């Protein structure tokens, strides 16, 4: 099925900054030039919804940005949305293509039950109204990796509507406060993915891989309730976590299982919304935020310089850090929507409306799916805060890395240490080590049991916290040893022999009469010097608080 065709013009490559407004635009962030405006955009936009333009022309003008998102998530299912072809992202090109996927004439779509369930579950998780009857439509456009010349989607009556997505962003001067925001979910629709075009510019040809053609997608349309890149990224992140928790999508942006298009406009508060642009194919959370903030700032600059915003599609050039118009999306696209005549309306039931005597394999019961919904990330976080008294941002941090929460919970299970201590160790020390070496939680050389044991030693005051850090470093480096072994080997345990400590303290006092005099004169810092001296004498194996107690006792006697 591999087919070689002519090269498509790479979107945005031969880009000309033409036709936008009039007047001069010197020094603007054109793609070939500096990325300074991109950076500026980021700074000024990211933190707050209202942006004060940096180069005001007619006095201080306030700008508000409006961001809506269309998110495509590939459904995790064994087979495609309308055909029996397997779904596997690592398969050789064109090895997973049914006759239907290749649009052979006479083939017909057959809806995959699993994909419908995934859409219903996503709808329920996002508090949507689930339409008991939804319809499929054809959306027409010619593209080499769209074999039928149309995509089957749900334009008129999607499977779920009117939901909401709560997400949190950091605010405040130190960005330490979490605030919950909500974006409306306009609709969730089922649709087909396209194939992939691989442009070989050297040989001036395009190679088509249809493995992805027809894979089920959930399109989640978020209302324009966001106002900056950070909010958009946070909303996408939350959706990602939800879909992963549901198991409806792996939602890995890097692998293209989650793709985001953003609709962006700016206006002066109190005035009607501005003309929007669409920034397409944002494939990482970082670029998503960056692209949106760049585009907001670009629009502001454009308007402040007396220019106009065109209703156009742009793509984000991550190398240049700016958005550029997509050449092949120029001109008016009319998708010529039409009902898909080969698929009858999709009917869903609840326990009440379920017709009697139906084969459960033939119908989908929404109530059944609702019962099976797993715990959603929001609830998990609330539980963490309640159960362990952790800060909300810590609950977010725990859920932000794949496997981190599970790691945390396993440590908690096995240790007597305080949850706060565990949280701190997992989020600071453990996560720090992972990040430094760019490892996933599953790749960690330190097991939850080892960390639990280490925290137990710390909790029993068998070792000092600085010794504990040292043990952790050792554990990270040399697999297979237990913390206790490590402590014994390196002689890191705290001095339990009070007689010996008394002796050391006494000799230290005797050796430093001047410091003792200082203490007695009332210099509050002098005692610390003595503590330090004793600690050094114990090779850091004594608890400073215990040393202080002993010293104070000896000094006052």
């Amino acid at each position, binding site marked *: 099925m591999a087919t070689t065709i002519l090269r498509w013009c790479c979107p945005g490559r031969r880009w000309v900054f033409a036709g936008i407004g009039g007047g001069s635009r010197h020094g603007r962030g054109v793609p070939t030039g500096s990325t300074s405006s991109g950076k500026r955009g980021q700074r000024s936009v990211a933190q707050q919804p209202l942006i004060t333009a940096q180069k005001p022309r007619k006095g201080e003008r306030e700008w508000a940005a409006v961001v809506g998102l269309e998110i495509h998530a590939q459904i995790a299912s064994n087979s495609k949305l309308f055909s029996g072809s397997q779904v596997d992202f690592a398969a050789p090109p064109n090895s997973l293509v049914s006759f239907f996927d290749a649009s052979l004439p006479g083939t017909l779509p057959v809806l995959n039950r699993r994909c419908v369930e995934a859409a219903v579950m996503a709808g329920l998780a996002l508090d949507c109204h689930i339409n008991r009857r939804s319809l499929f439509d054809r959306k027409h456009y*010619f593209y080499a990796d769209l*074999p039928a010349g149309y995509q089957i989607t749900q334009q008129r009556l999607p499977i779920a509507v009117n939901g909401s997505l709560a997400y949190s962003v950091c605010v405040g001067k130190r960005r330490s406060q979490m605030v919950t925001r909500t974006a409306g979910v306009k609709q969730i629709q089922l649709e087909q993915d396209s194939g992939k075009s691989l442009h070989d510019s050297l040989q001036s040809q395009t190679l088509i891989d249809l493995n992805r053609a027809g894979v089920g997608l959930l399109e989640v349309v978020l209302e324009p309730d966001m106002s900056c890149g950070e909010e958009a990224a946070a909303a996408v992140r939350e959706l990602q976590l939800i879909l992963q928790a549901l198991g409806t999508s792996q939602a890995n942006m890097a692998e293209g299982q989650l793709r985001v298009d953003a609709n962006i406009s700016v206006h002066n508060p109190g005035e009607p919304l501005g003309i929007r642009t669409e920034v397409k194919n944002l494939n990482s959370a970082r670029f998503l935020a960056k692209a949106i903030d760049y585009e907001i700032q670009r629009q502001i600059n454009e308007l402040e310089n007396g220019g106009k915003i065109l209703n156009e599609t742009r793509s984000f050039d991550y190398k240049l850090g700016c958005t550029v118009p997509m050449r092949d999306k120029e001109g008016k696209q009319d998708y010529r929507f039409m009902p898909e005549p080969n698929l009858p309306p999709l009917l869903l039931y609840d326990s009440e409306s379920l017709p009697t005597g139906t084969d459960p394999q033939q119908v989908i019961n929404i109530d059944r799916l609702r019962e099976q919904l797993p715990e959603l990330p929001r609830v998990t976080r609330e539980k963490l805060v309640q159960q362990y008294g952790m800060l909300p941002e810590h609950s977010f941090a725990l859920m932000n890395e794949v496997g981190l929460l599970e790691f945390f919970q396993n440590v908690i299970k096995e240790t007597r240490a305080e949850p706060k201590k565990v949280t701190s160790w997992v989020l600071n020390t453990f996560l720090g080590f992972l990040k430094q070496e760019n490892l996933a939680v599953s790749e960690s050389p330190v097991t939850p049991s080892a960390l639990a044991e280490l925290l137990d030693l710390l909790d029993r005051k068998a070792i000092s916290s600085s010794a504990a850090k040292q043990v952790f470093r050792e554990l990270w480096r040399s697999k297979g040893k237990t913390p206790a072994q490590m402590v014994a080997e390196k002689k890191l345990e705290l001095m339990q022999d009070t007689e010996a400590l008394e002796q050391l303290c006494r000799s230290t006092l005797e050796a430093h009469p001047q410091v003792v005099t200082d203490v007695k004169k009332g210099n509050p810092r002098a005692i610390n010097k003595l503590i330090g001296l004793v600690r050094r004498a114990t090779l850091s194996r004594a608890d400073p608080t215990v040393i202080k107690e002993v010293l104070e006792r000896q000094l006052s006697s």
Partner: protein
Amino acid sequence: MLGRTLREVSAALKQGQVTPTELCQRCLSLIKKTKFLNAYITVSEEVALKQAEESEKRYKKGHSLGDLDGIPVAVKDNFSTAGIETTCASNMLKGYVPPYNATVVQKLLDQGALLMGKTNLDEFAMGSGSTDGIFGPVKNPWSYSKQYREKRKQKSHGENEDSNWLITGGSSGGSAAAVSAFTCFAALGSDTGGSTRNPAAHCGVVGLKPSYGLVSRHGLIPLVNSMDVPGILTRCVDDAAIVLGILAGHDPKDSTTIQDPVKPFTVPSLTDMSKLCIGIPKEYLTPELSSEVQSLWSKAANLFESEGAKVIEVSLPHTSYSIVCYHVLCTSEVASNMARFDGLEYGHRCDIDVSTEAMYAATRREGFNDVVRGRILSGNFFLLKENYENYFVKAQKVRRLIARDFVNVFNSGVDVLLTPTTLSEAVPHTEFIREDNRTRSAQDDLFTQAVNMAGLPAVSVPMALSSQGLPIGLQFIGRAFCDQQLLTVAKWFEKQVQFPVIQLQELMDDCSSVFENEKLASVFLK
């Protein structure tokens, strides 16, 4: 033997009077003799002989697969056939060999039927004459019948007979001609606006359009998905019922087929006529209707009445909007369905390689004829955002009204509607092509199209020969999924009218067996 009905020849096979291979060879030889009819695009001789061989083995072992085992059939060339070229009579699909069988084809093969070949049609089934395909027009076997020639001799003097051959109607003209010329015992057509019934009427055979959803469309290269139905062309109603019985039923590959299990189709003889109510839609009495068809229509109505049935005039008030409504819906779906023919995955691809868009454009220009391109153009116009509400949505609403007309009539107690199938008998090709495809389609689909809008079953049954010696068929329309009741009425009617067998002796004088049933000939309506 070839002149027999499917049921008769099936019995002969079972009794060993003829072997599948003999039957197959006779049909193949007749196909060659009648090649000038242009009924077949592809003759699958090797495949058929192989199938016959296997069938023969089964018969020898006494393991026949059923009524269709060893029976030669033909399939319209818009049904996918694995390993056999499927062209839709279009440059676009010339040389295209599907890797799979349409469900209906597979069902025939599973029953042991012998596939003689793929029959001619209008390009992508767009037409009503079987004149607009790249392989040229299909000639109506009746052009060469004794019945027609004798009448012509009386009238015309010295005209070149061969240049006056008649069209078959369409778009399943190849299938109708194949059955009519005895080259097979049943053929598949497709019916979107009358494409099975129209050529059936012109060729003097039975043409059945089953209820939408009763027979799988999987593998049928679509014209209008929401109206297409595989059609059945046979020499008698019973044969159509046998084939329908095999084809009907849910297909997991076609989500629009009904889920309910389908009972086997047996067509009982109609005994109690008093319980039957026949509706005569008054809107079908149009000025364009030929007086001959009109008089046969009323004769038929009288026949029912005289035999005790209740015959009443009914109204289908939205009929007159059917043609224009169909035009919008059909072209819209055509525009969509044809989008896949871009030369990338299969089919024709032009040599132009300046850009992908240029390649698409040239491929499609070279691949499609004017009729197809014209429909794509109109369809895309109707689907434009600015036009969608005014055209497509309105047409859908009208379609619903048309369908409701039928529901109302059937709810009022009517069992079956009786109408003409065509305006007149088949016309000579020279006359037919005086009008363009669009005009012809609009005229010729007049009585048949509304049925597709409503998804109802309908059957054209040949009634009698016109004064010119050409067949005229009448149409029965039934309630949705009451195909059996429809066929019961059609069978009764068929028995009453005793339509004459085509006499093709000049055509194939060495095929004497064709005329075994000659005694049936010249039996006219009493």
